[in-house]
């Protein structure tokens, strides 16, 4: 799983302003300790796992021969395409569901149903109906991010403070103004949370999809490595997947913070 949980902030000082250096130092200590333990455990070959130097040198090889870059590129291209399509469709659909009760009642059963199906379970159907090229993978990512974002968007719309809407009304706002100037900004924090969850689930789904059906990508590389008992490559892939997932999540978190500076945080 990619890191979509909030890390580092729990148990820290209540005010999150400024950089928390002692926390950062502890994070680093933990990291070093982890690698040390890994090293110690694997040094004698006792656990059957590759020690850090071996993984590091495989990292260097895969970077040098360009294979890592190719894999990253094809995985990222898939996840971003599917993710963007999913979010772009989810936001209007979520708004319509939040705004019109009829639309909500019509669409909600489908959402609840598809949410219960792990996106990966759609893969066989997608491959049969869409062929084995990029389409089924992108479709599955699309579905994963769409479902996460649409629910967040419409929850955001229906939880907009009624008093705020009334305040706009008595100032003369009509439905369109209320929608554009109240509903959209007020639900932005919800939408962004949904988008972040969507990206996390898209990334997780993608890697798994590549394990099943792909000729490129980080998941595919791992699957190949498994055939040859190539543990260092599996490690390289896992670490890359984790780092990329974390990086994307952090980027969205920064965007989220930027767009919602007005929120009272307690």
């Amino acid at each position, binding site marked *: 799983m990619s890191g979509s949980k909030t890390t580092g902030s729990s148990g820290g000082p209540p005010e999150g302003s400024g950089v928390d250096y002692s926390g950062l130092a502890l994070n680093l200590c933990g990291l070093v300790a982890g690698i040390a333990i890994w090293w110690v455990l694997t040094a004698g070959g006792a656990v059957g796992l590759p020690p850090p130097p071996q993984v590091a040198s495989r990292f260097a090889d895969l970077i040098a021969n360009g294979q890592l870059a190719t894999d990253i590129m094809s995985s990222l291209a898939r996840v971003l395409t599917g993710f963007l399509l999913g979010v772009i469709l989810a936001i209007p659909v979520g708004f319509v569901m939040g705004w019109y009760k009829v639309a909500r009642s019509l669409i909600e059963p489908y959402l609840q149903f598809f949410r219960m199906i792990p996106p990966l379970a759609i893969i066989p159907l997608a491959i049969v109906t869409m062929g084995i090229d990029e389409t089924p993978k992108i479709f599955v990512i699309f579905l994963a991010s769409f479902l996460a974002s649409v629910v967040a968007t419409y929850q955001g719309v229906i939880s907009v403070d009624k008093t705020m809407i009334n305040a*706009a009304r008595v100032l003369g706002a009509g439905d369109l103004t209320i929608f554009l100037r109240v509903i959209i900004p007020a639900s932005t924090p919800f939408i962004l949370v949904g988008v972040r969850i969507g990206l996390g689930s898209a990334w997780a789904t993608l890697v798994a999809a590549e394990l099943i059906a792909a000729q490129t990508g980080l998941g595919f590389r791992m699957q190949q490595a498994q055939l040859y008992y190539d543990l260092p490559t599996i490690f390289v892939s896992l670490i890359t997947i984790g780092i990329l997932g974390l990086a994307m999540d952090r980027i969205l978190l920064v965007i989220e913070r930027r767009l919602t500076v007005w929120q009272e945080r307690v």
Partner: protein
Amino acid sequence: MPPKIVPKIVFDNVTRRFDLKDNAFIALDRLSLDIADGEFVTVVGPSGCGKSTALNIAAGLLKPSEGTVLVDGKAVEGPGPERGMIFQQYALFPWLTVRQNVEFGLRIKGEGAARRRQIAERFIDLVGLGDFADALPKTLSGGMKQRCAIARAYAVDPSILLMDEPFGALDALTRVQLQDQLLDTWSRERRTVMFITHDVDEAVYLANRVIVMAARPGRLKEIIEVGLPYPRTEEIRLSAAFMSIRNRVWQAVYHQ
């Protein structure tokens, strides 16, 4: 022939029911009340007696089940810019600065940027938020938020202010300050004010008349003329005359 005096706001036999599962619940039962132009009326009563319901009907946010509310002789069909409203929870738009909040209604009115800014400036200064014009609401205290909400309502120049427990969430000191500021503005600009409160002292201090309501069903119980002169001062607040009216209102509210 002398001109016929039309009350500013008329509640004419206003009833409001809410349909619950098994029975219709009467939140407001045949309220009839005239409020004169420029009058300051406060409404007190136990919680759930239909104060907010009555105010929301006058604001046009809620439809009466029966009866009508007339403003300037015309039936209320929906919200209108001549009726400004202030809520207990401020209801500021948290993503907008103080200035942008105050300009919100002006923008809807279609005022140009320069004029918007000029009007907003005036009301922001009036409520004493000049130094905070570009601050976000989250950085303001409760009292400052409510002053911003008041400036936002004033900016569209309503002739009526409908206020639903506007100072209810504030500490006692801030409340007294805002009461005096409100009276000060009111005595200069003479808007008609309908002000809900659960604080008997506040009701008496502000009003020409105190409307006392009773619950189950929500209804008018008694109208008490305050009859104290304006400007209301600390001296008045501590006077025997104030005390005796306050006691009358208290009796009406708590011994129903």
